[in-house]
């Protein structure tokens, strides 16, 4: 059991291998085989996560750092040492469980949903690849590994949003545009993360969260807090087991090299470690204690300011990945991807990476008050903004997308008020019920498509005969709802106005969807009630007892957002499932197949019960039944600044009341509005005063248009100007071809005509002319006859001889 942390490289390796197999050979394997490989890879990863969970539980929650085998370091150069190093602690295992657990269910669901798609194998390969990267993100022990996963999941999200890039009638272009938009907006966030990483590195000289041997949470950290002392006692008893890990690991050369379990038994804290030997968080605390100034060449900053800047950059990163204002715009568009993708990536896991990262960096955020305030404002305003927009949407997935943005806002706001445990708690519960809702909506869309096919073009029997064909086109239709160009595409299976009355047609989907809705709306005793209540209660404490403005902001905005949540969710349930069918497609919609229904049931059960894992103390006696704040305690072994909230009957009751009232109001408005909706109009739209607000929500507050006006359009125009005018017309053509080339030619001409021809040529020609004049006189001598030359030669010889002989003659 103690050696289980060594298994952690496998949790990445297995999905990666699954992805590789499906990518390389998937085309040649039958659909069922592909699905099995993908699902089993995911299930194995879940199994490992469970093993890690049990290992942690049995070893006193000792964190472990594992170096994966075969990989020798990573970025290793002068002054830089960043390794592929993995961290197993309660926080990362929580994420692993959620990712692999929900992931496995969604793999199973996709088996049914994606049936018949020509790129079935690639879909599973991408899903597995996503799991692998997501697990890199959460298991990494340094910011750079987190960044690898961070961008890797961005890539998978890109691939999966653009999965149907080849749909006809312009839909393919729209899908791939959405994919590109997602990647680029995320890159803006990544810019922030990268800057934060540079700052962290040059401040602390390392990127590791914690070094081997360091305690993330000193065992005496909560000693003074009465309620924790018992827990600490339990942990302390568990320590000898922790100590054994070291020896065991040294003895066994297994899968992974277990470096060192954190915390040698004799130490309760990190005081014995030199500051330089600590990870970033440990160092940050020491620096703050010392009030150290950090030298950045041209300027020197106090540590507080540095941490504020770091956290602001991290916030930018989180805003990109977790879809916060101002970078949330990609998420609604990302619904272009297949519905299982929306459930897994764009609701349950990837988008929560930002929250995970901020919770991981809780030490930083705890020290940065200004940033925390900004985080609260960003999160809370995102929550209410997205909640408002969701009310005005007709597209079943788009409502859920905005709902996701809104719920992410809850989590971010929770981080802002310092409720890290509550943020993680909401992250976990949200993963389950939002995945459930998305899968439910997928089931509805799937059914609507079948119903549509049954109603149009084919008779009912025909539809069955052409089952394969119908399946194949189902997936097309998932996104073709935008293309209102042809008669076939006019029908939109995602438009809630086309639905209605599906309660009787799809009973399982209905019941599970209802559970998801109640959980999301925060109705007692479903999961969402507990997690949302904890965030609100913590805000209450921060606002009222600590007197911080951020607490009031969070409490006020989030309460309102919770009301919106209940309203738009009940609106959706009424529009989709209640009343009578509004189209023939809805009339003929069948219940989904078994692989799709099973995940719905499992998730529904989870959505009911998962909230009980963190019942606050003093909650109507339930805390004695399920144990009080067990999840928070579990997290407290790796998240330093986590604290358990108390049950607050006022807040909980108020929020519950608000939600119920909102749902009753929604029911009142929409349940009897069949005729209005048949006209394609929302009842709210026709009311005076509210109508304009609804239209604003329907237009999504014109975010996309504003972005286009402020950023996209100027960017394109400047780009065109730079490229066509400045670089090409001016610099390339004018300066080079005109100024330089022509100037060169002009100078050349001056040199050629007056200078070269007149002077230099004159001299040369003069010499030539002289030679010619001289030679013309001598020409006749050259007769060309051999004889002439011979005689000349003879005369020459005679003359030479005479000259030679002359002195002899003179001498006599």
């Amino acid at each position, binding site marked *: 059991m103690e050696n289980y942390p060594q298994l952690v490289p496998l949790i990445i390796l297995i999905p990666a291998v699954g992805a590789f197999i499906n990518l390389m050979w998937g085309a040649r394997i039958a659909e069922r085989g592909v699905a099995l490989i993908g699902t089993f890879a995911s299930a194995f990863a879940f199994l490992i996560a469970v093993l890690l969970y049990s290992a942690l539980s049995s070893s006193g929650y000792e964190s472990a750092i594992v170096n994966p085998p075969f990989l020798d370091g990573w970025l290793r150069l002068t002054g830089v040492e960043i390794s592929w190093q993995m961290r197993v602690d309660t926080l990362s295992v929580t994420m692993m469980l959620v990712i692999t657990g929900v992931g496995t269910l969604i793999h199973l669901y996709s088996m049914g949903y994606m049936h018949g798609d020509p790129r079935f194998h690639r879909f599973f390969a991408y899903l597995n690849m996503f799991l692998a990267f997501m697990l890199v993100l959460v298991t990494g022990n340094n910011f750079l590994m987190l960044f690898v996963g961070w961008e890797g999941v961005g890539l998978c999200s890109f691939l999966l949003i653009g999965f149907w890039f080849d749909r006809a009638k312009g839909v393919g272009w729209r899908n791939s545009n959405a994919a590109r938009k997602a990647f680029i907006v995320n890159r803006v966030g990544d810019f922030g993360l990268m800057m934060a990483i540079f700052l962290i590195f040059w401040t602390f000289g390392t990127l590791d969260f914690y070094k081997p041997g360091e305690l993330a949470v000193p065992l005496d950290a909560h000693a003074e807090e009465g309620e924790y002392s018992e827990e600490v006692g339990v942990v302390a008893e568990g320590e000898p087991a922790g100590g054994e890990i070291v020896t065991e690991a040294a003895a066994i050369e297994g899968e992974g090299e277990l470096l060192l379990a954190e915390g040698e038994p004799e130490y309760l804290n990190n005081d014995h470690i030199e500051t330089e030997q600590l990870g970033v968080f440990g160092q940050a605390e020491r620096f703050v204690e010392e009030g150290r100034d950090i030298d950045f060449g041209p300027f020197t900053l106090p540590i507080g300011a540095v941490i504020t800047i770091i956290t602001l950059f991290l916030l930018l990163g989180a805003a990109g990945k977790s879809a916060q204002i101002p970078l949330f715009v990609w998420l609604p568009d990302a619904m272009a991807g297949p519905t299982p993708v929306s459930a897994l990536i764009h609701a349950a896991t990837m988008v929560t990476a930002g929250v995970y990262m901020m919770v991981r960096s809780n030490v930083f955020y705890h020290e940065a008050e200004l940033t925390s305030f900004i985080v609260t404002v960003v999160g809370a305003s995102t929550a209410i903004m997205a909640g408002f927009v969701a009310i005005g949407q007709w597209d079943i997935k788009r409502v859920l997308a905005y709902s996701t943005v809104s719920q992410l806002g809850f989590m971010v706001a929770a981080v802002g008020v310092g409720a890290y445990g509550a943020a993680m708690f909401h992250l976990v519960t949200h993963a389950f019920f939002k995945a459930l809702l998305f899968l439910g909506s997928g089931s509805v869309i799937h059914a609507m498509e079948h119903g549509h096919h049954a109603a149009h073009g084919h008779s009912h029997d025909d539809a069955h005969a052409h089952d394969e064909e119908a399946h194949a086109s189902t997936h097309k239709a998932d996104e073709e709802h935008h293309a209102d160009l042809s008669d076939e595409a006019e029908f939109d299976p995602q438009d809630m106005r086309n639905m209605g009355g599906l309660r009787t047609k799809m009973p399982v989907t209905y019941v599970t969807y209802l559970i998801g809705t109640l959980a999301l709306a925060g109705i007692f005793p479903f999961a969402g009630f507990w997690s949302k209540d904890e965030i609100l209660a913590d805000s209450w404490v921060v606002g009222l007892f600590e007197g911080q403005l951020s607490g009031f902001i969070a409490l006020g905005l989030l309460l309102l957002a919770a009301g919106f949540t209940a309203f738009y969710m009940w609106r959706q349930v009424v529009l989709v499932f209640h009343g009578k069918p509004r189209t023939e497609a809805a009339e003929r919609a069948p219940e989904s197949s078994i692989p799709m229904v099973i995940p719905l049931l499992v998730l529904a059960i989870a959505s009911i019960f998962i909230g009980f894992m963190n019942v606050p103390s003093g909650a109507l006696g339930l805390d004695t039944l399920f144990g009080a704040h067990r999840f928070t305690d579990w997290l407290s072994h790796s998240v330093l600044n986590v604290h358990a909230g108390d049950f607050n009957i006022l807040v909980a009751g108020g929020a519950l009341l608000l939600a119920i009232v909102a749902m009753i109001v929604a029911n009142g408005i929409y349940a009897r509005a069949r005729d209005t909706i048949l006209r394609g109009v929302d009842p709210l739209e026709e009311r005076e005063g509210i109508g304009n607000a609804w239209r604003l929500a329907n237009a999504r507050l014109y975010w996309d248009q504003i972005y286009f006006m402020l950023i996209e359009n100027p960017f394109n125009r400047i780009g065109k100007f730079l490229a066509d005018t400045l670089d090409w017309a001016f610099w390339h053509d004018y300066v080079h071809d005109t100024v330089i080339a022509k100037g060169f030619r002009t100078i050349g001409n001056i040199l050629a005509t007056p200078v070269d021809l007149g002077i230099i040529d004159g001299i040369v020609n003069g010499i030539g002319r002289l030679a010619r004049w001289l030679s013309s006189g001598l020409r006749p001598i050259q007769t060309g006859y051999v004889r002439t030359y*011979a005689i000349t030669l003879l005369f020459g010889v005679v003359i030479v001889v005479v000259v030679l002989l002359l002195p002899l003659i003179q001498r006599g």
Partner: protein
Amino acid sequence: MMVATEAYVVLSMVLFVLGTLGVLLRRNAILVFMSVELMLNATNLALAAFAQQWGSETGHLFVFFIIAVAAAEVAVGLALIVAIFRSKKSINIDELHQMEG
């Protein structure tokens, strides 16, 4: 019996003059060529005679040089004549005055 050196020299002079006249007066390239050979050999004779007279090897050495050069000259010269004949269909040297200035 020793023939007097003067006799050799006189013969050499005669041969040389004959050669010179041949070069100057004949029009046939082959004959001109042969006349040149005659002049060369006249020289050879004189050189050999003087060498005998003075008991020096230098003269003999020059003779060998001249023979070698003459042989080379024959090879090149005859080839030239043949080439000229091929193109001109004549070896009359008076018809060859393209080198006229």
